[in-house]
């Protein structure tokens, strides 16, 4: 039996990480109460999904016109810690537009809003745990954490998986982005290998000729053997 907490050391960020200033007043000070696994398994019910619309996995087709920016494909597999596919699970993503602006009332970055881009998508993984989105490469944008702070280009992901323990909200980054070295959110993950797992990989096999570059982003949800009698990969 692999000790999950040992494996996760360095790959999961701490709750309190002062370089990311918002953690200081929001991270609980008391230690978490550890729930034995047999109770964590009782934590069901589990969220299924919201209805998925036809253009929900294509962020470039949600408006009358095409959004500005570099069209990209983001695809990958969702697996558990045994490498088994997490099938038919909801994958949600959201992001800013190509200019680095969210379609959000509280985003006051002076970059243009794109009337043809909402920046939100959702899909369900297939029987092999695969998902695929078409979107626009998000821009970098400034934020108020520290002097001259800029978020690297990133896409937010949210996944449920089969149990409470598998719930994951994370961010996907892009290869060779110089801003990652200065980003306290990215750097809150201390293990460099875990950091690299948050970085998507350019993938020629996902790239569609004369149309869009492809980036692969595989996701591992916590837990294992939750459906031991289903087919293995």
């Amino acid at each position: 039996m692999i000790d999950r907490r040992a494996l996760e050391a360095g790959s999961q960020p701490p709750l309190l990480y002062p370089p990311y200033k918002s953690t200081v007043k929001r991270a609980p000070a008391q230690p978490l109460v550890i729930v034995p696994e047999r109770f964590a398994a009782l934590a069901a019910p589990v969220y299924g999904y919201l209805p998925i619309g036809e253009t929900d996995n294509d962020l470039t087709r949600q408006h009358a016109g095409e959004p500005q920016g570099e069209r990209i494909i983001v695809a990958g597999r969702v697996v558990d810690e045994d490498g088994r596919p997490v099938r038919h699970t909801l994958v949600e993503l959201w992001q800013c537009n190509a200019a680095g602006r969210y379609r959000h009332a509280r985003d006051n970055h002076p970059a243009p809003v794109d009337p043809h881009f909402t920046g939100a998508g959702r899909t369900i993984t297939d029987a092999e745990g695969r998902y695929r989105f078409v979107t626009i490469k998000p821009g970098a944008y400034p934020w108020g954490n520290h002097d001259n702070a800029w978020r690297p280009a990133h896409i937010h992901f949210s996944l449920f998986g089969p149990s409470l323990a598998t719930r994951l909200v994370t961010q996907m980054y892009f290869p060779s982005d110089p801003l990652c070295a200065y980003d306290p959110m990215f750097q809150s993950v201390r293990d460099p290998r875990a950091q690299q797992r948050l970085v998507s990989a350019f993938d020629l096999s996902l790239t569609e000729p004369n149309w869009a570059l492809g980036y692969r982003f595989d996701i591992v949800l916590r837990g294992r053997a939750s459906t031991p009698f289903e087919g293995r990969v």
Partner: protein
Amino acid sequence: MSERDPFIASSSQTVGPFFHVGPGASDTCGHVAGPDVPGERLRLRIQVLDGDAAPVNDAMVEIQQADASGASAATPAAPDDPVPAFSGFGRLPTSEDGSCCFDTIRPGAAASDQAPHVTLCLFMRGLLRHLVTRVYFEGDPALEHDAILALVPADRRGTLLARPAGDGVTWELVVRLQGDRETVFFDV
């Protein structure tokens, strides 16, 4: 990935302040139980306060709960299955006063060592990992037999108890992220 590189869970990252464009876009998830679902109607109000006791107006709050009989909602087996009248799931953004309200039913007990409860997940700017806790109902005799509550130091158990607001339908829990009455959070 090879055998030398085991499948290690992806790192968590904060939901950030702009989740409203995506997973927080709909407030329909505030209705956990449709009108035909049997059970005692209640409104669960969750308010989130930070280390300065200031309202957290940009949190995403998710709840999961059993139905009135203590049964979990069945997870749809296929993507085309209809969403059941009782999903057992709710998700809302907090408003300016740091609160959100779910229209639901009082859950039943899922097992003899489990008091009726609502599971709560909190996501927000400043949380690099989301927080998990439970909402119990003050005055419930089953609290004495709850195996999870028994893991919590006695003097902190009160932080997990929702209390009636006095209008006959609303139960309130204030989640305090820090301070003397810091809410208990669980590592699941």
